[in-house]
């Protein structure tokens, strides 16, 4: 209705010079470098209605300018490809109809950017067939001097659709996406026609694209071939069963029907027929007299060796497979051509891999046949980005020119950045096709900096492994896994390997006083390894199976002693059951030798072996020394660091005592007082029985990653010579989480037996004692 009105108005306009309408349904169509403007033809057949267009490039051509190729156009399209413009910039068009002096109003089109609007034209395709593969060489769309794609030509990505050109039920097709202009599709069926169509696309843009025309090619290779075997004389028929044999044996009856072969390819017994070829010239089915090939009636393999007189001129062969009652259709008939005897059908190697063996990269592949040599080639992957077959410059891999085995070890400098490998087999004059190309990525993109491993004895049964990286900054993002090889230095026992994700861990269940060594390697998720670290060795602590601190308890007793005196006495044992690892045995006789032996128990029963026997003598009655502080303990909780102790028994002392705390780092040789200036807190000559190092405003506390040793003693103010012995706190390291790993603070009940010994001479005892006190 409205259109009729419009049309009649047009007619009126044509006659009476009234309004002309601008063209309708205007579209800009760009494909490669061809720019076309399209509109709906005016319904009005009469008159000289022409169309003209203008363009404007904001910022460059600000005034409306005549669009070349689109002036006074009578048809319904115009081509303005001749306009020189920057395809990455916005352009505006307007269009109107004209008739004589009469012009329609301008119709402005939406601004567009030609590069974003353009459709990608069909690429050019060239196919090359092998027997089980097709190589597709693609040239980018557009002309070589294309303006639209001049920056894109090397960077198009391609989609390839391939299908089998056969009629029948099974239509097979595949889509392959390629980043490069050359792809090879493998694992195809020989002697089959395949068709291909390709379209290009850009990675960063969404331009629609057109497919190339369809190209078809047939794979070469024969299904039936006569082969000359290495010993020169025997000819045999070799059949390649590329097609699958459909089994009609029902699933449950699998056991019942014996099959002659269970190869995946479904080979079964082979029967071959031969026919004189001249018989083919005569028509009529009766005249095709196929005869059984002797020796090939029920061949269990995919070949058979008939008597040689079968192989004469002009004979056709056909083969079929059977299993039980069912058999395949006859294969295609193959004419035996005496001239084609030496048809060696070597398959391409498969499963190319690069494997790291003992720090050396080795190229490996799989191959089914024997008696062949292999040749490997490599290509730098950046060369794949350019089209044209001459730019694929495959080079021989040194050391792999004639490999007799299915691997080779080329010089390591081949294994650099992204490279591709391919391998083929040869026997005599003939060679197999090239294998599929396998990309190798050195993985050296990430080099893990050298590792440093440290071993620290924790007790007589465990060592702590600490692994650090020299340069740790960036690698926090990586999940690094550590492989630590751990062994006993002296013996030849097998190395244990620990695979840990933690950089600090404990190795338990070790033998005391043994030197153990460790070496570590770091791995990233997908493979690259660091160089092995340094080898670190450490010795587990000596003697008792007791945790270290318990041992120190027994020796703490000993440290009180000054002299060892002979003191005959009766044999009497007292048993103490303690949960503390350090405690005092009071009420002893002065100047007596006492010995102790300890056993540890866990709540639910298991006991440790008895410890060493430690002996010490109590002091003489003269109070020459103050008793040392007892039970020094460190409390570490989050940032809290508090050392506390109990005063020694002061039965015979009058007057206040003070305490002195000292600290030492492993690297320093001297002990230092804990003062405000050194640590930030004053624990020198204090009367309190604790020292709080918690980092606050005043106290710096001890830094987190250092081992700090602490010791405390009792002093009489003003009489330093009467100071007690030092009571040491086991070394600690303030770990990130704050809580100290207190080996002794498990729930152990400890049984301590004190043996009061009599009658042992100092000389006899001293050597043992010295050992045990060590």
């Amino acid at each position: 209705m409205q259109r009729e009105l419009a049309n009649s108005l047009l007619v009126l306009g044509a006659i009476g010079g009234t309004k002309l309408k601008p063209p309708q349904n205007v579209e800009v169509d760009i494909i490669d470098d061809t720019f076309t403007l399209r509109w709906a033809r005016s319904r009005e057949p009469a008159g000289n209605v022409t169309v003209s267009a203008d363009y404007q490039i904001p910022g460059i051509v600000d005034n409306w300018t005549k669009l070349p190729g689109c002036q006074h156009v009578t048809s319904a399209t115009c081509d303005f490809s001749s306009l020189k413009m920057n395809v990455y910039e916005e352009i505006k068009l307007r269009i109107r109809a004209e008739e004589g002096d009469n012009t329609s109003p301008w119709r402005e089109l939406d601004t567009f950017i030609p590069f974003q609007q353009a459709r990608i034209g069909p690429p050019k395709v060239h196919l090359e067939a092998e027997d089980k593969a097709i190589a597709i060489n693609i040239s980018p769309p557009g002309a070589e001097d294309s303006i639209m794609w001049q920056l894109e030509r090397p960077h198009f990505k391609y989609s390839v659709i391939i299908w089998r050109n056969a009629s029948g039920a099974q239509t097979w097709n595949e889509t392959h996406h390629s980043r490069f202009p050359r792809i090879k599709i493998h694992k195809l069926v020989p002697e089959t026609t395949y068709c291909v169509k390709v379209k290009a696309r850009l990675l960063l843009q969404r331009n629609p694209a057109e497919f190339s025309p369809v190209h078809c090619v047939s794979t070469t290779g024969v299904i039936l071939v006569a082969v000359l075997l290495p010993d020169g004389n025997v000819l045999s028929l070799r059949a390649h069963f590329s097609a699958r044999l459909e089994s009609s044996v029902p699933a449950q009856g699998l056991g019942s029907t014996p099959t002659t072969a269970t190869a995946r390819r479904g080979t079964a017994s082979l029967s071959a027929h031969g026919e004189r070829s001249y018989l083919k010239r005569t028509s009529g089915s009766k005249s095709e007299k196929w005869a059984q090939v002797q020796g090939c009636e029920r061949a269990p393999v995919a070949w058979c060796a008939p008597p040689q007189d079968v192989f004469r001129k002009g004979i056709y062969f056909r083969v079929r497979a059977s299993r039980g009652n069912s058999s395949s259709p006859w294969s295609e008939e193959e004419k035996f051509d005496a001239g084609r005897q030496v048809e060696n059908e070597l398959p391409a190697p498969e499963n190319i891999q690069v494997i790291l063996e003992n720090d050396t990269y080795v190229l490996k592949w799989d191959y089914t046949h024997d008696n062949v040599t292999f040749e490997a080639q490599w290509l730098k992957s950046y060369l794949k980005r350019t089209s044209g077959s001459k730019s694929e410059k495959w080079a021989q891999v040194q050391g792999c020119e004639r490999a007799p085995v299915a691997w080779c070890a080329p010089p390591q400098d081949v294994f650099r950045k992204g490279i591709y490998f391919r391998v083929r087999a040869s026997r005599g004059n003939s060679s197999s096709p090239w294998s599929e190309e396998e990309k190798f990525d050195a993985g050296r993109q990430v080099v893990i900096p050298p590792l440093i491993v440290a071993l620290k004895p924790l007790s007589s049964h465990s060592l702590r492994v600490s692994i650090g990286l020299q340069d740790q900054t960036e690698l926090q993002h990586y999940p690094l896994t550590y492989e630590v090889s751990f062994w006993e230095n002296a013996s030849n026992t097998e190395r244990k390997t620990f695979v840990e994700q933690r950089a600090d861990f404990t190795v338990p269940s070790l033998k005391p006083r043994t030197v153990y060594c460790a070496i570590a390697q770091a791995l990233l998720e997908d493979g690259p390894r660091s160089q092995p670290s340094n080898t670190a060795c450490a010795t587990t602590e000596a003697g008792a199976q007791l945790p270290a601190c318990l041992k120190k308890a027994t020796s703490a007793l000993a440290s009180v002693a000054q002299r060892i005196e002979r003191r005959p006495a009766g044999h009497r044992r007292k048993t103490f059951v303690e949960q503390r690892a350090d405690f005092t045995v009071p009420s002893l006789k002065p100047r007596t030798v006492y010995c102790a032996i300890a056993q540890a128990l866990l709540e639910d029963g298991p006991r440790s072996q008895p410890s060493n026997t430690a002996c010490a003598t109590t002091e003489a009655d003269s109070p020459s020394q103050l008793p040392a502080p007892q039970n020094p303990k460190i409390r570490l909780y989050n940032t809290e660091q508090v050392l506390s102790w109990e005063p020694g028994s002061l039965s015979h002392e009058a007057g206040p005592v003070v305490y002195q705390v000292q600290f030492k780092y492993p690297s320093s040789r001297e002990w230092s007082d804990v003062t405000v200036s050194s640590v930030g807190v004053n624990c020198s000559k204090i009367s309190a029985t604790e020292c709080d190092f918690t980092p606050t405003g005043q106290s710096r506390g001890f830094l987190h990653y250092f081992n700090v040793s602490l010791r405390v003693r009792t002093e009489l103010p003003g009489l330093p010579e009467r100071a007690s012995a030092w009571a040491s706190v086991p070394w600690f390291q303030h770990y990130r989480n704050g809580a100290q790993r207190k080996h002794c603070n498990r729930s152990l009940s400890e049984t301590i037996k004190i043996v009061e010994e009599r009658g042992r001479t100092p000389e006899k005892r001293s050597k043992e004692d010295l050992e045990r006190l060590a």
Partner: protein
Amino acid sequence: MINRCTLQLTVLLCLTGAALSVNYGKLRLQQRKSNSACQTLLWQLITSPQHCLDDRMDFQIPGEVEQPQQVRKEEAMVVMYEMLQQIFSIFRRGFSNAGWNETIVENLLEELDEQMDRLETALEEITREGKFPWENRTVLRLKTYYLGILQYLKAKFYSRCAWTVVQAEILRNFSFLNRLIGVLQD
């Protein structure tokens, strides 16, 4: 290789349930290392800048590349990819006049190829995630910029000085790339 591409795609598709996504920390580390290698190689190529002062040219790199504002990491990847692509194309052209050591240029192309390869994988992944920044105008402005460099080389008949000037400009490009790499945070 084609089958590997399809395999990669298939594997990635199968693993989308397992939240496989771009590991930006790793990508950043790798790209940064590669980028330094490129800069080092380019420095080795520059021969005689002294007497080329007359050939200097302001190619007018887009402002947002020179002075990057807040940009999403997907946008940064796209911009980086475009730059790497174009730099690769430039060094594939006829540089016989430049008198460069061919091995160094090959090494540079290898590094660029590797960077592009990594970004291609990451970009395919973000496309799958639906996060691809399709309407990125910076990429178009960069194309104008690189077109300018190309036209300059053609106009100067790929002379030695023209190549030297272009090298200096590409060196600047690498420092901008470094800044973009820094955007790739998880």
